[in-house]
């Protein structure tokens, strides 16, 4: 991931000097490559390192169910980044994300799961099923894309909505793959090159439980995919996405191939969705065809729109928010009797309240702060950048 391609005539010492002159003048860029870099300010670099370090220590400070929850955050972030590439960067609204997640989960389950009666399971290694869990949805995404590229904007949203319903029907009917409606099946086994990633382990004398082991698995995959996405958005293809989003006809006139760009966006987004689906199925533990419905798609839309359209870090923020909100609602319901189980006398169940809040926040963010949580962060940052002046 070499980010700064230095011109040949600059020696290594020159390059180092150019970086030191940056210090204290974070907005002075002497080369385009510096401005385009993954970490275009040193603050960013420092904070990413700090956050990664914090994430490595975190599971040892948390309880078991919280560790699982944070793993879910990573998985939602992967799926959210995928949808953001398609919806945020390339401007193609998709309500069909859940279908691709399901496809990834079942690809993984068939390849990496265990045979159980009529339900197929090949018991292959994670090194095989994980890439394929992304590639199979990507292939289906590529197959759908030419159809999707014919239609724009709202037509596409409707088309992908249809995809969720058609997908759910086939998931319900394909008993030997999915276990059938209401029954479900076990997900894939996370055995990577012979090492089981979901058992308790003893590493360097420290006892690490299986949730933590899987936490690190998700974290590593998430980091790889997040950086890959960030790099993609900086590339020729990323700029093509943005051009198609902003004005597709203008983009085409300027030589951006519309069909190819939209197809690529669909393929990449489905790849991310597939990986997220496969990992999610392992965290959930048992998957039924009903898991992959419209509401899951809306959850991912919430990740994108609450987090921030067309930013990778926004999707991560959005994932944190969307995954943590139910937990928060649950914790708070002890103090505020607004949500509770059936029969507790509370006006809403936790699920209802959480969904209600998602809906409200999607509306509020779109109306008041279209850039989402990331936009809020930018506002705060700019306030302190200009401090003590308010402008």
């Amino acid at each position: 991931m070499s980010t700064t391609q230095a011109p040949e005539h600059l020696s290594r010492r020159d390059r180092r000097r150019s970086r030191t002159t940056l210090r204290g003048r974070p907005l002075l860029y002497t080369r385009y490559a510096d401005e385009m870099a993954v970490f275009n300010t040193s603050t960013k670099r420092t904070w990413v390192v700090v956050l990664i370090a914090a994430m490595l220590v975190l599971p040892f400070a948390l309880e078991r169910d919280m560790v699982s929850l944070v793993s879910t955050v990573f998985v939602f972030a992967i799926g959210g980044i995928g949808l953001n590439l398609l919806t945020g960067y390339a401007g193609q609204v998709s309500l069909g994300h859940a279908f691709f997640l399901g496809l990834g989960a079942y690809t993984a389950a068939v390849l990496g799961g265990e045979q159980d009666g009529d339900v197929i399971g090949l018991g292959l290694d994670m090194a095989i099923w994980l890439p394929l869990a992304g590639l199979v949805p990507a292939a289906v995404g590529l197959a759908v894309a030419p159809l999707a590229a014919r239609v724009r904007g709202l037509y596409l949203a409707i088309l992908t909505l249809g995809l969720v319903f058609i997908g759910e029907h086939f998931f319900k009917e394909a008993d030997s793959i999915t276990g059938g409606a209401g029954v479900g099946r076990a997900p894939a086994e996370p055995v990577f090159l012979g090492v089981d990633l979901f058992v308790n382990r003893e590493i360097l004398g420290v006892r690490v439980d299986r949730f933590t082991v899987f936490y690190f698995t998700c974290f590593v995959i998430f980091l790889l995919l997040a950086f890959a996405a960030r790099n993609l958005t900086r590339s020729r293809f990323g700029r093509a996405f943005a051009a198609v989003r902003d004005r597709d006809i203008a983009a085409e006139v300027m030589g951006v191939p519309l069909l190819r760009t939209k197809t690529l966006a669909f393929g990449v987004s489905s790849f991310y969705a597939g990986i997220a689906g496969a990992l999610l199925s392992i965290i959930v533990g048992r998957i039924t065809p009903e898991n992959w419905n419209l509401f899951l798609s809306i959850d991912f839309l919430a990740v994108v729109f609450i987090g921030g359209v067309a930013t990778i870090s926004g999707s991560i923020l959005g994932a944190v928010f969307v995954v943590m909100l139910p937990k928060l609602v649950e914790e708070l319901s002890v103090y505020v009797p607004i949500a509770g189980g059936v029969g507790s006398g509370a006006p809403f169940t936790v699920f209802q309240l959480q969904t209600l809040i998602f809906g409200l926040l999607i509306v509020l963010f779109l109306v008041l702060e279209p850039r989402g949580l990331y936009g809020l962060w930018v506002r705060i940052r700019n306030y302190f950048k200009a401090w003590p002046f308010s402008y």
Partner: protein
Amino acid sequence: MEELVLSLARGLGVGSTYALLGVGFVIIYRATDVINFAQPALMILGAFFASAFATQAGLPFPVAVVLAMLVLAAIGMVAERLALRPMVGRPSFSAATVTVGLFIMLLILAFRLIGPDVITVGDPWGLTTVGILGFEVFAVDLAKIVISLVAIAAVGLFLTRSRVGLAMRATALDQETALAQGIKVGRMFGLSWGISAGLAALAGVLISTGATGVDATIALVALKALPVIILGGLDSIKGSVIAGLVIGVAESLTKTYQPEYAPWLGANFDLIVPYLIMIVVLMVRPYGLYGTKEVLRV
């Protein structure tokens, strides 16, 4: 033969409610260029209010239905004013996403109001049958067809004959010019939402009649209006009426004959027939039967 007639009648009945929902989508789309994904939630709320007025408050069924339509029209107008008006001038997919947010909020509200039990709308038809040309068909199917078509015709007349309807059409055609002629464009947006929410309420009542009852899952039925508007064309009322009937009949015939002739397609295959038709239409004729082909410039 009897089976065929019964299933045709059922298809036309269901199809006419799809048409009703489709017209609601079209009215909003023409006025504001937004597809209102909240329509299904408005529909189910409408069914709930009709049920509450008819069975709990004890009002006569027609009065309850009209009241429910008025309540929903008010809800639709409020939703438009609060959530959609600020989105004027923003990309239409942002506005459509706002309606997705509205959809889940209103849906949860409806779940909450309806509760775990199935409630009825208190319609007078039940399971009675009527003889037509020697065939016995359910009265409720005929009622659906007649009421839907009358309602759509009324809306059509309102749009083409009345002064306000003219203003609404002018707004749909060109907002700035309409504004320059002294039309209150914002009010027209609200009115479109009101009308289409009212139509959605009526559709909700009609879908919940007979043996069905008001059940939260009928919200998914309303999403079938989306294939309808794709087939008919996003901006054509005539298109959505025809497409509604076509899709209703196709679905109903599949329900009757598919388990017999093509069982390998699986149970409940009829539920996805509308979406399959939609995909074919998008491939062959993306602007539907009567939709205006979009002309764009850079």
